[in-house]
């Protein structure tokens, strides 16, 4: 285990050398990629490229070995019980679509209920809406409390309606609040529900042990964990994965095809139709292996320190509505300059080379409940610096000044 050294860490990201003037605080949207990830992808294409699972030739066997090694590495990274519990897909959105589609008919029958929360990303709302409405399944939504956290009392009450599936995010992409996932999972399980965790933001914040968490599914996107875009992971317990009807059909996912019917292959292949993102999987595994060597507690503490400095600086800027709470926060701050549209604030920050996101962050229902047009979101990563914090605070002060002048 290597100690975490912020300067050395940042030095591994060439992006910053190519964009020296920028302060990048849009990490919740996507993260930058360290050299080890870029090199793993390049090296695969330059040296080992071949399709997997298909060729009789040695090159294909080598590519297959590298791809399956990536699955093993990722299984280790999240402490999955077995390698076939790692299903490669294009990202959290694809995984949630597979789960929502895949549980209809096998688990969810007309008249059944699914429970989500009011804090979800569209990726954990719309697939359920789409498939529930076609299947006569009712979708319930846990409201938020006054601190914009999932109302635990209401959660308990809605669980009493016996939803067959409960799906919620580990960490809110809008506010950065860390949900009491372990508690919510155990409550949901006590009623017999299947549990689905949207780990798109959770995976990068904490060391995830899926066996300890004990959810049936935990899904995430590689690009929010220093990995490439186009690859993600649908983790499921074996019994839970067996319940899923594949959303995609095609090559590799079947063991026998004739024109009257096909026999599905075993896991994980049953849920991985078509040529997978081989280089993406290898790149993501490189990210996981690299992260495992770095002291994750120190990384977390460093990010918490940046966040603390940022919150302290915000206090000195008047006229802000801060939506995020500093406690149980994974490094995301959503705020508004009072009376101003987030798009204007984000644009004025952009002019000052501070990259943030302004808008609704794919969480329209959340903002409509609050009657807000959206928010400006600052999201921090361990490669950010104290100087980044200072620059962004200055830029925000300047933006607020221009807007309220």
């Amino acid at each position, binding site marked *: 285990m290597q100690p975490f050294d912020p300067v050395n860490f940042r030095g591994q990201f060439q992006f910053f050398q190519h964009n020296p003037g920028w302060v990048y605080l849009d990490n919740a949207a996507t993260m930058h990629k360290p050299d080890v990830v870029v090199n793993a992808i390049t090296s695969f294409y330059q040296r080992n490229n071949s399709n997997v699972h298909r060729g009789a030739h040695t090159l294909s066997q080598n590519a297959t070995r590298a791809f399956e090694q990536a699955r093993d590495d990722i299984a280790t990274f999240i402490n999955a019980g077995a390698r076939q519990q790692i299903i490669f897909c294009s990202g959290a959105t694809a995984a949630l679509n597979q789960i929502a589609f895949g549980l209809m008919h096998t688990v969810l029958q007309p008249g059944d209920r699914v429970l989500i929360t009011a804090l979800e990303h569209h990726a954990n709302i719309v697939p359920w809406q789409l498939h529930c409405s076609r299947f006569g399944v009712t979708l319930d939504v846990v409201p938020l409390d006054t601190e914009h956290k999932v109302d635990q009392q209401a959660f308990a009450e809605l669980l009493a309606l016996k939803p067959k599936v409960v799906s919620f995010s580990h960490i809110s992409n809008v506010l950065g609040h860390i949900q009491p996932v372990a508690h919510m999972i155990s409550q949901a399980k006590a009623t017999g529900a299947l549990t689905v965790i949207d780990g798109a933001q959770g995976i990068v914040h904490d060391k995830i042990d899926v066996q300890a968490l004990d959810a049936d599914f935990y899904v995430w996107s590689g690009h929010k964990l220093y990995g490439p875009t186009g690859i993600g992971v649908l983790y499921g317990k074996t019994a839970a994965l067996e319940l899923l009807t594949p959303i995609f059909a095609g090559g590799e996912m079947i063991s026998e095809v004739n024109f009257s019917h096909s026999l599905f292959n075993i896991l994980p292949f049953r849920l991985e139709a078509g040529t997978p993102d081989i280089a993406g999987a290898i790149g993501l595994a490189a990210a996981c292996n690299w992260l495992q060597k770095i002291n994750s507690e120190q990384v977390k503490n460093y990010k918490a320190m940046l966040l603390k400095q940022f919150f302290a600086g915000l206090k000195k800027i008047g006229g802000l509505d801060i939506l995020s709470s500093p406690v149980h926060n994974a490094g995301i701050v959503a705020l508004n300059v009072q009376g*101003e*549209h987030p*798009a*204007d604030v984000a*644009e*004025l920050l*952009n*002019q000052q080379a501070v990259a943030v996101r*302004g*808008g609704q962050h794919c969480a329209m229902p959340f903002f409509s409940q609050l009657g807000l*047009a959206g928010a400006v979101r600052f999201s921090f990563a361990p490669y950010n610096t104290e100087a980044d914090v200072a620059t962004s605070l200055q830029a925000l002060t*300047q933006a607020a000044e*221009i*807007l309220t*002048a």
Partner: protein
Amino acid sequence: MTLDQLLTDTKPALSQIYAEDLPELSQARDWQSKYRILMQLGRKLPPIPEKMKQPSLLVKGCESRAWLMHYYNQHQDQHFFVLDSEARIVKGLMAIMLSLVNGMSNAELKKFELAHAFDKLNLKPYLSQSRGSGLNAMMARIKDCCR
């Protein structure tokens, strides 16, 4: 408030923007002044009252919500518009755009190219892509009003 009244109030605001603010904008030295001018510009357009903001007026494809109303004077072959946006910078840019096209004939409007016009005014560098897309959506909606 009626559409007539909004149209009547919008016209002089646009003339003023064209005659006074655009030259001022091109003289502005630093980005702060540019953005201050842009935001003041937007304020000159009369806002569309909340009650009149029917969903059908909403222009899709903008990051912030924007609305467009239209009137075509058939006798004189002239298109007139009223617009509003909840974001001020975008509203300023839309106001400039409108100052260029308001009152155009059908043929003129069809021919109008926003990128070209902004280029001529040296405004293109200030159109980042995201803002550009809201503007482009508004422009497309304006062009849809052509006969």
